[in-house]
């Protein structure tokens, strides 16, 4: 009987902890939620120990800053360009700040998004709390910087 209580307690703890951990389905806007943007494929999740499978050679920087896991998904815009969105969940806000500050600001404009951000034109980065977010476009389009920013704001709203 005691074992059954113990198992039930463990399941309950697991359920609570899983429920309190927002996954990619909650954090990435779905198709149609941001004008022009549609989500492509299924979001992928990389825990810190296997982040190198996604960004080998760059993963160490995130691990040293305390990344817990990374979510990534692809998007397509009706203006005929594609983009990838990465959300890095760090152990704490200091880790998100460390990643942002480790990147060159060359060619960027400050972006008022989250706690701090930068817009590079074809990509943008921002941090909010323990989240570090990067959006990268693969092609060029006239309205693309604004379109990226719109998508970034929709993601930021989900991190609150």
């Amino acid at each position, binding site marked *: 009987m005691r074992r059954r209580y113990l198992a039930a307690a463990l399941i309950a703890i697991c359920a609570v902890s899983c429920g309190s951990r927002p996954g990619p389905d909650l954090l990435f806007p779905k198709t149609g939620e941001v004008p022009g943007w549609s989500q492509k494929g299924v979001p992928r999740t990389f825990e810190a120990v296997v982040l190198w499978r996604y960004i*080998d050679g760059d993963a160490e920087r995130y691990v040293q800053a305390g990344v817990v896991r990374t979510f990534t998904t692809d998007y397509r815009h009706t203006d005929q360009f594609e983009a990838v969105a990465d959300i890095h969940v760090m152990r704490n806000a200091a880790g998100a700040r460390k990643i942002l500050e480790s990147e060159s600001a060359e060619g960027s404009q400050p972006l008022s998004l989250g706690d701090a951000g930068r817009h*590079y034109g074809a990509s943008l980065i921002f941090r909010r709390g323990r989240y570090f977010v990067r959006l990268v476009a693969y092609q060029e389009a006239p309205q693309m910087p604004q379109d990226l920013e719109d998508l970034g704001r929709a993601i930021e709203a989900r991190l609150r």
Partner: protein
Amino acid sequence: MNRRDVLKACLAAPFQSAAFQSKSKVVIARDPLLRGPGHSINQPHLLLMLDRALQSFYDRDSAIEAWKRVVKPGEVVGLKVNCLAGRGNSTSVPLVEAICERLQQAGIPRNNIVIWDRLNQDLESAGFRVTERPDRIRYIGNDASGYENELSVYGSAGSLMSKSLTRVCDAVINLPVLKDHGIAGVTLALKSMFGAIHNPNKYHVNVGDPYVADVYMLPPIRQKVRLHICGAITAQYEGGPSYMPQWSWPYNGLIVARDPAALDYTGWQIIEQKRSEKGMKALKDLRREPAYIATAADAQHRLGTNDPRQIERVEV
């Protein structure tokens, strides 16, 4: 000129000739009209640029004759692509298509051509369609082809090798891209072979030195890689290895070499020049000078040369 001068000239000539012959040739082909509207790659221009590079490298009048210096009919030829950066700055699909076209014209049937890299997902992300159909050109990640069970060991490196390299391919053409690397300085011909092993994440300490050179010494890599064609169509001078459009520029070129150290040295200098133009610090000042290139060229490794005086740089 007196008798002594004549004697000196006679004695020196063979050595000068030998020195010239021992130089590592690096051909850089560029085409300012490579990109069409919307920055799409103009395939006929790409094919012509590839032909120019190969003909110059092998000193042949025809591209097919040049390719016949690389591969022989009956061989299974692997194209080691680099797809880590997704669609933004991986080995370009049009370049691979152009090489496949020339390989077939040189006598390699399509079912003897294998395009491979770390993961099927990487290949898909870069725009390749994974397929293992035996009657077609095959596209396969190491996660699908598998790794050997026994470690290959050299120096600091101990890794399981991709079966695509060890069992499937007789010859490999390495197709890296020209880009910066946040830890190792740059990632070009030498480091791209990290995609042939199961544990590349173990080898990024100490700016990748001597690991990058040691991995390249592993016998299947050393024995089977015949040529390097670095896709410098889009190049990246900061923020690599992930694709960062803000630090990329259209170099519109290919860099061809057999000597991976000479190619890496040449590519590194191109990246440094761009960094300098952009007012960015040299990699040495950021403590990520790619010292592994010198290690690859040292007396223990002898993978090539990083001495600019021993590199014959040809621009076509």
